[in-house]
């Protein structure tokens, strides 16, 4: 079914915000699954309570669970927002814009993780088991800013593409 919408009535905000919130939540899952569980570079409070005994490992796993519950909530809210966005007649479901929004949200999660958990509260470092863990935090932050830049660029590119199509 083709939706016919006046060019000046098209809105990108609902799709981008939904995609970014999903990206935020899934970014948290990537951190939790890849860095906490598969690579085991850190856990949620591993800088405060190193998981070097079974009891400390269990306490860290508990806080990993709380963290995952919050990322699950973020993802669920994002899906609800996406559902709402796609039911609107003034929103165009652009795949490029969605990818951009997902990367934007992922990068935003990582920057928040860096700011709060790595630098302000010192709950954990990205890689606890290397000689200079702070260096891993700096690299993680740089990559995260890169994700935001790429995501934002894709969103802007999708907006320009859709505007050009409207003007045909």
């Amino acid at each position, binding site marked *: 079914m083709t939706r016919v919408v006046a060019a000046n009535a098209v809105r990108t*905000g609902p799709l*981008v*915000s939904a995609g*970014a*919130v999903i990206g935020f939540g899934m970014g948290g899952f990537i951190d939790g699954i890849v860095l906490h569980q598969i690579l085991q570079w850190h856990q949620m409070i591993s800088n405060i309570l190193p998981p070097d005994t079974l*009891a400390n490992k269990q*306490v860290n796993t508990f806080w990993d669970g*709380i963290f995952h519950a919050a990322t699950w909530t973020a993802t669920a809210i994002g899906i609800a927002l996406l559902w709402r966005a796609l039911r609107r007649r003034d929103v165009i479901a652009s795949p490029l814009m969605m990818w951009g929004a997902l990367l934007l949200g992922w990068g935003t999660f990582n920057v928040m993780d860096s700011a709060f958990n790595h630098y302000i509260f010192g709950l954990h470092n990205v890689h606890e088991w290397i000689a200079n863990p702070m260096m891993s935090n700096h690299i993680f932050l740089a990559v995260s800013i890169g994700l935001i830049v790429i995501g934002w660029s894709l969103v802007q590119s999708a907006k320009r593409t859709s505007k050009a199509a409207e003007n045909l």
Partner: protein
Amino acid sequence: MRYVLGLSATIFALVAFSADAAACTMCNVEVRDTIAEQFWDMAWRVLAPFPLIAALFWALDRMK
């Protein structure tokens, strides 16, 4: 916006309270006591970045 904030606040509260209760039922006394001692101090730190989703949503939703 109010639905996002309301849902977030409700779920965070449920997670926090149920986790607090779950910590009390753990078999390992050392683990249970460690979690109980630091629960609220850690809980707000671990969850602190998440309410910023609302700010992210608010900023992007207004985009033309």
